[in-house]
Every structure is written in C-alpha cells, then in structure tokens.
C-alpha cells in the first residue's frame, strides 16, 4: 500500500477573483466558497475571513480545523464516509496545502439545552504573542468560517453542518487550479526494512463518547469499533475525522491527517526502527472493566503484529487517562516497551500530583507541560469568530483585555504544547 503525496507550501493567502494558486500565493474567491456551501447554509450564516501566521489576530470559539486534502488519483475521496460512500483510502495520489487550515468557529444554536458533557469548551487560536505556542495552527494560514446559526437549526444539525462545511471546503481548495507551483513529493508507505530493526507501533487513543465528544473512522463513531490496525497512509487521506469539541484536549481533524507522531515514525522507518503501523483505539470507555479490556485488546493486537515497542498518545484527559494507563500496563505486561505522551495537571501552584492514574508499568512517560498553570495572556488587536471568550462556563471575558488563565483556553493546546517542546519540570 502506498500513497503519493503532493505537498504545496504557501507564502501568501489572499482574496481574489478566482480560486487559484500562483506560485506560492493562494487566491480565494468568496463567490466560489459561497456557492460551494450554498445548499448547507439555510439557517447558518457563514462569514469568511483570513488569518495569517504572525498577525495580531485571535480566533475564538474554534470548533475544528481541517487540512485541505483531495484525491487526484486512485480510489475514493478524502474524508471517506462524509458526503459519499466510505471507500478504503491510502492509495493513489493526494494533493494538499501543507500550511493552510479551514477553521470553523461558532456557538451551538441551543447551547443551554446541551448536557454539561456535550457543551463545547472554549478554544482560541492566537496567531502571535504569548498564546501562539499554545494554539494549534498559529504557524499556518487559516481560512476561517465563522458560523452563526439561526434558532431554527437544531444542535444536531449544526454539529453535522459545520463538519460537512469544513470538509467540503478542504476537498474543494486542495486541487485548486494552479500555475508555477512546485509540489514537494513524498511517498507514504511501509516498505520491508532490515529485520533486525526494532518493531514499533503507534498506539493512537481517541476520545469518543457521545455527540460533541466523538471521533469518526470512515464516518463511523470510534465508540462503536474495537481497536483496529490503521495504515499510516489512511491518516493522510482523512480516514479519521474529529467531532470532538473538548477544545483544549481535542485532536483536530487536521492533526489526524497531518500527525507529527506518524511523520516521525515514518521518517525513522528503515533507519532506526521498523514501523509496523498504527493501532487506533478508543478512550473514555464507560467502566473500568471496559477500559481494562480495551487495553488488553490493544496489547494483544500489538503483540500479534510483532511489536517490541510502542509510542503511545491519547486524546483527552482524566477519564481517558485510565484507559490509556490500562493500555500501557497491558503492553508492558506483554513485554512491549512503551513511550507515552501526556500533559500534567500540577495545579496553578505546581504541587498537585501530575496524573490522575499512573501505574508503575507506565515507566516511559513524556510530558507536555503543566496545563493547570496560570499564564498571563495579553490581548491581540483583531478578534475573529465572536465577541467574547467563554471562560469554560464560569464567566465570560472581553477578548480585547488581558487575562490570567491556564492553557486550557487555547484550541488543541495539549497537542500543541507537546509540539512546541513544552514539558513540566520541578522548579526550585
């Protein structure tokens, strides 16, 4: 199985008369975008804006960010299972914009009628300043779709609409008409390598619980699946799509299809490791017994694939940590060494225990930093996506004023903190 990837890097994104790529400049035509989403927009007003890296801009109420990817050859379409039959992906040709995101913002139309666990959490993206290294996508261009639903739109419909809008834009933009643009070509595959290299899998645990806190695999909620093997190439074609609005801890759709852990293990394949592929599993199972079983199944699958080691990551926090720890324990019990990545909650004053659950078998941990530490967040000149910041249902804040808050206010901050090289360490 191999996928040919054609990556285009952008130096400028601007509004224009036609949607097209000239060299490294992408022009976006507002009429094209409006036409594209027309049938989806009754009852949902869409406002389009552009945000660029380094600008003094703050995007609020971010729900998801999607990378523009589209198939230009081979079977199926990107984001299988959404707007089309779910054909297997990960082969043929895929074109993408490496540093552009289609970013959706908005508030659900009937927010108060959502149960506490369904309520989306605030997620902001600061394009520059102190917040930038905490904000997923701060180093990329954004086409922002700010959505305002009318009250005739149900919460369920809004959830579906915002997802389809973002995915459709992503599929539309990636193959835009182009001239003078050079793609960087890559082959995503796992060719046989020196059998003496250590065999390694990536354990990829996602959050999937209910509407507004779920993840899709080929359009199907992961909560309805057992752990499964996924080829890295399937990720690049958007086989995993996020429907999770637990903002700070979510893995955005763009991060599923452009995941640095997958890229890192692919880069080391044949050099220092024999990368066997990815095991996709579900966190947030409802009972301890289920969590334990999920761990055992993941470990059994890894063992049958021949893994000697596993890099492991998880989406979520608290509850999902228990599933994750059971998985690490089960792997270690099977003799599979693990290196697992997590954020710490050491409290604003730094002396709380770092993790809610930490069995002794989880002996190889990588930290993403203390996510409950207070940081001083200065304002940015322009605010996109809404007039206020929701301080996680406790209060609201004027985004034009400075505030003191923890990194949970930033969109996909748990992943981004890791990517920015943050970790926690003892002070004094």
């Amino acid at each position, binding site marked *: 199985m191999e996928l040919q990837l054609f990556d285009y890097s952008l130096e400028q994104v601007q509004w224009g008369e036609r949607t097209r790529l000239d060299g490294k400049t992408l022009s976006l035509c507002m009429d094209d975008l409006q036409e594209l989403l027309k049938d989806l927009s009754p009852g949902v007003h869409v406002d389009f804006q552009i945000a660029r890296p380094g600008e003094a801009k703050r995007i609020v109420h971010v729900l998801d960010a999607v990378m523009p990817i589209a198939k230009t050859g081979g079977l199926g379409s990107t984001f299988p299972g959404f707007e089309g039959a779910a054909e297997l992906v990960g082969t043929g040709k895929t074109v993408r914009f490496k540093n552009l995101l289609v970013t959706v913002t908005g508030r659900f139309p009937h927010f108060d009628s959502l*149960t*506490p*666990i369904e309520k989306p959490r605030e997620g902001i993206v600061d394009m520059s300043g102190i917040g930038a290294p905490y904000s997923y996508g701060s180093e990329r261009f954004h086409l922002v779709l700010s959505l305002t639903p009318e009250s005739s739109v149900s919460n369920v419909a809004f959830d579906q609409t915002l997802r389809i809008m973002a995915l459709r834009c992503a599929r539309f933009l990636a193959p835009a008409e182009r001239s003078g643009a050079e793609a960087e070509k890559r082959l995503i595959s796992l060719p046989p390598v020196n059998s003496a290299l250590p065999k*390694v899998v990536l354990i990829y645990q996602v959050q999937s*619980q*209910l509407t507004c806190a779920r993840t899709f695999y080929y359009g199907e909620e992961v909560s309805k699946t057992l752990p499964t093997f996924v080829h890295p190439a399937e990720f690049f074609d958007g086989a995993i799509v996020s429907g999770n609005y637990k903002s700070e801890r979510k893995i955005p759709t763009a991060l599923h299809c452009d995941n640095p*852990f997958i*890229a*890192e*293990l692919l880069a*080391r394949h044949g050099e220092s*490791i024999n990368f066997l592929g990815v095991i996709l599993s579900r966190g*947030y199972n409802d009972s301890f017994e289920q969590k334990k079983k999920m761990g055992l199944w993941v470990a059994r699958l890894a063992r049958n694939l021949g893994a*000697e*080691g*596993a*890099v492991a990551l998880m989406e979520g926090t*608290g*509850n999902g940590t228990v599933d994750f720890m059971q998985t690490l324990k089960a792997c270690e019990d099977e003799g599979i*060494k*693990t*290196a697992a*990545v997590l954020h*710490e909650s*050491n*409290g604003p*004053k*730094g*002396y*709380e225990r*770092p*993790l809610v659950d*930490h069995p002794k078998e*989880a*002996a*190889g*941990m*990588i*930290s*993403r*930093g*203390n996510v*409950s*530490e*207070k940081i*001083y967040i200065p304002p940015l000149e322009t605010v996109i996506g809404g007039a206020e910041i929701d301080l*996680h*249902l*406790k209060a609201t804040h004027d985004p034009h004023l400075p505030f*003191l808050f923890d*990194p949970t206010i930033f969109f996909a901050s748990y992943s981004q903190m890791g*990517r*920015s*090289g943050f*970790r*926690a*360490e*003892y*002070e*004094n």
Partner: protein
Amino acid sequence: MIKVLHYLNQFFAGIGGEEKAGQDVLFLSEPVGIGSVLENALKTHGVEYATIACGDNYFHEAEENALRAMGAVIDQFQPDLFLAGPAFSAGRYGIACAKVCSWVRDNWRIPAITAMHEDNPGTREIGRHVFVLQTGASAASMQETLKRYSLLIERLVARDQKAVEDFRAEYCLAIPRRFTIRTDKPDYVRAADLLLARLSGQSYESEIPRIETQAHTVPNLTVSLADATVALVTEGGLVPKGNPDRLESSRGSRYFKYSVQGRSDLKHGEFEAMHTGYDTATVDRDPDRLVPLDAMRVLESGQRIKKVHDQYFVTTGTGAMPSKMAELGAGIAAEIAGAGIDAVILTAT
C-alpha cells in the same frame, strides 16, 4: 531609582496586635518598621518606598476585597518590586504573603519576594517565580533575613541573572513544584528517542514522576450490618432537576446534601447529573444507577440494614485538583461522623 512596595500585616506595620487584625487595606507612602531598615540598605540606588498594611483577619475573611484594594494601590504606585513578610512561622501571615506575592507576580509580572520558615503553611501557596527567602522559626532571625532581602534586591536591580539564580539556590526555600518549561525538542521526537533508549537497554528519563497513592485504611463496621445506618455519597454530580445550588459541572468547589426522605427511588426527570467527565445519559434516565436508593430501600425493608440516611451527599469529581477533593471529602466525612452514620456507599464515576 527603584520603587518598592512592601506588604506588612498589622503587627509589623506597627498598627497593633491581634485586636487590630481586622484592619482593612491601608496605603502608606513611606516605609514602616522593618521597611525603614530596607530602605536604608537600598538608598544608594535611590528608592521610593511605600507600604501596604492589612490585618491578618481582614485578609483571610475578605480576601477578594483585600486583593482588589491592593491591586488599586499597585496600579497607582507602579512598583518595580514587591515585598511581603518576613512571616517566619506565622501561618496566617505566611499564607497571605504567599498568596499576595503570587498574585502580584502573575498579574503585574514584577519580582515578588517573601520570606518564611520552611514549616509555614504559606509554602503551599507559593506561585511560580516568587522568591521565598528561608528564615528561622522566629523573629530572632530578623536581622539576617532583612540582609537577604537587600542582597537579593541588589542582584535583581543589577539584572544579574546568574547572581540571582545562585542566590536563589543558596538562600531561597526549595519547594518542589512542577511548572512548564520549553525544551528544544518536540514531544514526538523525545517519545521516539525514549522508546529507542528503552528498547536498546540504555538509561533513560521518564519525564513524569510517579507519585505513590496514599493508602487509606478501610475502617471496620462497629455495629452489625442490621443495625447500621448507611449514607449514600457520590462524586457523580447528581442534583435535583434545575440544579438549585449551582453545583459546578467540573472543578467542583463545594458539596451538597439532598433529601431522600419519603422517596422509594430517584425518579427520571426529578434529578439530573452535572458532570462533564462521563456520559450522563444513563444516569439522567435512571438516577438510581448513580445513587442506588431503590436497591438500598429493598435492603432497608428486608432489615438487612437499619436505615438509609435521609440525605445523600454529592459533589462533582472531575477537572478538580486532588487537594480540593481531599478538602471536600474531609468535610463530608466530618458531617457523616457527626450524624450517627455507620457506613457509606460511595459511588464514583
């Protein structure tokens, strides 16, 4: 020219003893007491020295108001440096010094220095980057402590980072707390490196320390089960429909008790779960599945237990800090111990 603002309690500000502990926030545009000693030690730099005085009782009883008043002073005076203490072993003053310094450092990002003995409970309230000079247990170490304040200030004024760090290592309390730092490698690179080190048997560092869970002894039932009054307790966030007391759905800061008197079970539509940590749909459909009153009533009528306590206790155990949960747990336990309850069924989610 440096501007120094020094926070003193009523005693060190010379206002009075315990009888003046209710003193509200007072701004004095001059040094007071030990402040005069420090001003004198710093005078070669040209120093504008002012004082905030606040009674210990006032601070603890009206913390928010006290901080607001101090904030107004800081905005007005615009200090370059903030001092508090020394508190030595004085617990209430130590906690106040720690809280005020942390709050000033976080919000105004100016150096904040306090001083206390290592056993002062204020050491649990120290925020990031706050300097905590080590002192003796009593004011007998005052002279040496004041010298350390001025030595540290000298180094801060000289912007000599290395001298500051050397000073911190030698004279400040080492309070192990974990904060975020930035490394030069992202998590995915460090994770792959760590795995390879483990696979090849090299030495490695697990970046997150494992803290052993405290073991709790389970007490024996002191009466026979048939004579026991049993209370229901949960962290699952179950409240009467409409959430009359505004229990938080995450980061719970309080607990509540609600009557089950005269109820044979908890009915759908009369209770709901306030909790962002688990899927509450099942509980909302049948609240007994979280707080099993229906099953307890069967045991009660079958005389397997004497009685179900008339109220159940509830908080929300998600997103909160363990220390907060320990505090709430202790509060619930104290109430239960005082209410003639013999046993508890604790349902967690």
